């Protein structure tokens, strides 16, 4: 059930009407049941995995709260191994077996792994990370174990953000679930506006650009001109951002309408002037997760320069692998890790020349968009074809060909530079004519640019 479909619209209107009419406890029960319905809509069989992750996380945290020392650590490991085991089995097994077989074949062994054909459960990376953050926080005594299984199950399964984030920490979401909530007219209107902005990002920008991107990547890459490939890569960067940020905005908007605040996940990342700033603005909930549960436990920046760079690289390599079981994602993470290390090294030099902001921005975007090639390409062969096609400059196109995707690009600029600041819409502060014209623009953008069938969110595959 995708947010941008009529089925979801009907589902949410019904749920919302019921939600407003219920008291706190029945509200939570309603949210839990509809969250499972929402998830089971894709494939009810994978609900079992969700329940295992929930059950083990809940029990481990409770037992951790009643024990100390080695026993406490053991319960933490039980929970972490369960979540990592689910991830390994359903997301990475084929990748590891296939990679090992390829390695053996290169070494001259006759290795033919059976193709396991394991389907990837939607949202698996998000809810397992959410569960892990909770047990780690309980272990570190940052949050107290939750006594109510219902509240904890809702924390894991809460439908607006379960399948593609934001990954919300227990300390932020659980108190909101445990206390009665009030929906004000302002929060309803602001949530609806945020949902509308997310819908415009998805339907009018991401899905529209996807058609241009697919045209590039579905064609014979070797025969495509440099401009065609470059345009494909640039538009893919805008597509994936608006697709994912659109989902996050819709999730936050829906949640706000129900009186629950989720964390901001994006803050105009393509206007970052350094790679470090980019990661403070891109997929913020994952960046923070990786920082707090991976980078800092690895030692962070304590222990000398070499260790800091090593930790950055490991964190980003694993962050890349989190996105998908493929070497492309690992390399993508590696590029970002290396860029972060280089930026850190540069920043640490006391007598460095000042780089003008536009140049710094251009260099940052060159890295970010260059790395997107690894993200979009099916395999390393495609990466090679795209990069060599761009670097060995050839061919041209008519002016119209460049102007074609202008409408969604302008809409993106309008949203990121004018209508949204730090992840929050500022439209409501404008005069009524400005607001009216903005609403009309968003509605026209959605109706005119939308695709005739629902396009799944890119990040659902992660």
């Amino acid at each position: 059930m995708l947010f941008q479909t009529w089925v979801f619209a009907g589902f949410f209107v019904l749920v919302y009407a019921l939600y407003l009419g219920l008291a706190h406890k029945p509200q939570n029960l309603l949210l839990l049941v509809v969250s499972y319905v929402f998830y089971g809509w894709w494939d009810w069989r994978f609900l079992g995995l969700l329940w295992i992750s929930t059950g083990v996380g809940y029990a481990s945290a409770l037992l951790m709260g009643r024990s100390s020392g080695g026993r406490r650590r053991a319960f933490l490991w039980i929970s972490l191994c369960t979540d990592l085991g689910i991830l390994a089995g359903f997301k990475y097994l084929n990748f590891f077996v296939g990679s090992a077989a390829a390695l053996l074949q290169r070494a001259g062994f006759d290795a033919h792994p059976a193709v396991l054909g394991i389907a990837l459960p939607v949202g698996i990376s998000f809810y397992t990370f959410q569960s892990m953050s909770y047990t780690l926080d309980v272990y570190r005594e940052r949050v107290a174990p939750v006594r109510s299984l219902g509240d904890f199950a809702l924390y894991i399964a809460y439908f607006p953000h379960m399948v593609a984030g934001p990954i919300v920490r227990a300390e932020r979401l659980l108190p909101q679930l445990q206390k009665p909530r009030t929906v004000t007219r302002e929060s309803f209107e602001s949530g609806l506006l945020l949902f509308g902005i997310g819908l415009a990002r998805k339907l009018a920008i991401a899905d529209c650009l996807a058609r241009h991107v697919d045209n590039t990547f579905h064609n014979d890459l070797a025969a495509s001109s440099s401009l065609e490939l470059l345009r494909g890569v640039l538009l893919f960067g805008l597509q994936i951002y608006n697709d994912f940020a659109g989902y996050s905005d819709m999730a936050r908007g829906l949640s706000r309408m129900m009186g629950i605040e989720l964390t901001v996940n994006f803050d105009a990342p393509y206007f970052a002037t350094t790679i470090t700033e980019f990661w403070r603005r891109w997929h913020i909930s994952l960046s923070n997760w990786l920082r707090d549960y991976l980078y800092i436990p690895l030692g962070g920046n304590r222990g000398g320069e070499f260790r800091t760079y090593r930790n950055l690289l490991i964190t980003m390599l694993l962050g890349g692998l989190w996105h998908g079981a493929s070497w492309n994602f690992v390399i993508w993470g590696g590029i970002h890790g290396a860029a972060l290390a280089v930026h850190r090294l540069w920043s640490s030099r006391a007598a460095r020349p000042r780089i003008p902001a536009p140049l710094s921005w251009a260099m940052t975007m060159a890295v970010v968009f260059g790395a997107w090639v690894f993200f979009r390409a099916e395999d390393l062969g495609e990466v090679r074809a795209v990069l060599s096609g761009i670097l060995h400059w050839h061919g041209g196109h008519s002016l119209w060909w460049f102007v074609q995707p202008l409408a969604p690009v302008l809409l993106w600029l309008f949203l990121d530079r004018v209508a949204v600041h730090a992840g929050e819409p500022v439209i409501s502060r404008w005069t009524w004519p400005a607001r009216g014209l903005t609403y009309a623009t968003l509605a026209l953008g959605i109706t005119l640019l939308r695709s005739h069938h629902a396009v799944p969110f890119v990040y659902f595959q992660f």
Partner: protein
Amino acid sequence: MPFLSSIFSFETWRGGLPRPGAAVGLAAGVLLLFDVGVARRETLWKYDPVVRFRGEMEARVIAPAPAPLVVLFGSSTTKDAVAPRILEGELGLPQGSVINLGIPFGTSYDALFLYRRHRERLSKAKLLILGLDECCLDAHHTFQAHAPYCAPLQDRLDYFEDPGTLLGWAWRTCDFGPAAAWTAETLFRTLIHKEKAGIPFAFTPDGRFSPTYLSDKAGPGNLSHEVRAKAGWDHFVLSRKRARVLKDFAALARSDGIQVLFLQIPGRDRYVDWVEARYPETRRASREALLSLHAPADGVRVRPEFRGSEMGLEETDFADHEHLRTTGARKFTENLGRWLRREYPGLWLQ
């Protein structure tokens, strides 16, 4: 307590009912103005080459044929594959007896729509052939801009998967997206590139009506077979609504006493083999759904054809995976003609 109710407490809500306000009123006004002033302008819709193609086809193919005996419908694959002059020769029919109404991006709905629109003329035919694309029963197989352009409310309810299309009946802006894109492109090309607006259409010597920019060397795209197959079959969902269009088309034709043939245009062997190997179950389900329409006793036949070589076609006869060049069209039409002579003996003389 604005939401007092005997059933629900609505204790969650505070702050009164949301008020639409002047901003929402202005937005609604702008949308209404756009809908009435832009999205309903016939001249703008005609910048969509498919809408324009159908208009030209009605004027230059249907109008000059007062009593065609064999009428072909379908998409660009049918448009490219069947040469009317060659088929007339094979069947021993006079010129103008066979007309090919294949439309680029055409769907089964276009066939139904065209037949209804020109029923008086087309019902004089003996045989209606509807060329089917390989994914014609897929729920995602988009009915293009020209379909909503003309679909009445009942058709939108019966045949269209996207509920947005239903909304488009009242709010034409929902349908207008592709036509708006074409309008923008035409204006840009005319004003900036100084190009002449609209693509010219012409007849090929063997009687096919086509946009003139297409030649034997330029197929409609250079997609790799893997990518093309994935786009068509990866998310295939068998649609009852799509099957219903075919059933209703056949029923309408049969009520006029006309034989109906659903004909699948063959694909390039290399492509078809790849697809068959990768999507055996989906292909089987799709083929079975098509064959369920086969009822020779009732005058409805289905002729599924998947591999080009079964029709004597070689790799070089294809412009891409499914569109035929002139040589391929000749071979395919001759083969079809022989089959029609055998399967419908004397039909044309009745």
